[in-house]
């Protein structure tokens, strides 16, 4: 019997969508609006604070997992949406979408290992 890889892909897509749904609004609030609006301390996103927090291997792991799931979810959805918008060259779309996600994933991994 042929085994399909769809359950795994769909599982990752669903996980990414769920993580986005729960985390992205509050992350944007914290990273983009909280400090300029004075809702959180000025040093919330400071170099010292974040790099200290990311020394912790567990923080690195959670950060990587969250960013990985969201970027691949977004990449997959954009690939499908490109088709809906009339772009029918799926090979090129796939290369752009998944290529961006792969590059981002790799970059995140290297950055986290260096911090």
């Amino acid at each position, binding site marked *: 019997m042929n085994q399909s890889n769809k359950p795994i892909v769909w599982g990752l897509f*669903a996980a990414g*969508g*769920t993580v*986005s*749904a*729960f*985390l*992205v*609004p*509050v*992350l*944007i*609030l*914290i*990273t*983009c*609006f*909280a*400090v*300029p609006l004075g809702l*959180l*301390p000025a040093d*919330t*996103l400071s*170099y010292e604070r*974040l*790099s200290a927090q*990311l020394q912790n291997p567990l923080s690195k792991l959670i*950060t990587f997992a969250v*960013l990985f799931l*969201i*970027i691949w*979810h*977004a*990449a997959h*959805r*954009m690939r*499908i*949406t490109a088709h*809906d*918008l*009339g772009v029918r060259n799926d090979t090129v779309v796939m290369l752009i979408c998944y290529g*961006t996600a792969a590059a*981002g994933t790799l*970059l*995140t991994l*290297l*950055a*986290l290992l*260096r*911090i």
Partner: protein
Amino acid sequence: MSRRPYVRDLSKTGWWLNQPRYVRYMAREISALFVGIYVLILMAGLLGLSQGEVAYEDFLETAEGPVGLIFAIIAMTFAVYHTYTWFQVTPKAMPLMIGSKRVPGPFIVAAHWFGFVVVSVALWLLAGSQT
């Protein structure tokens, strides 16, 4: 063979513009673009962090500029819309049974929003905690 084959006059790109429910569908799908770009920005921030304080300060300055702020407002809108649509389909995507009874859809959606508030408040407090 039909001599006058019916060709639907439908744009491949703009077919969704005429119907509100298709527009909502497209808004939901395109939310991934803004969420994706936002995550790429976060990744750029991590790269800055890994390259040292100067690189990170440069990143912050760019990200907190007017363009960054306008993008953040748009991204926030789409992110919340993604959350709304994602929670809205959960009763269909994963129907829940207790015994032989189906848990009502609105209850499942409400439970997700409750979780959303708990997670958001927890992260907010974590971000603001003085350590």
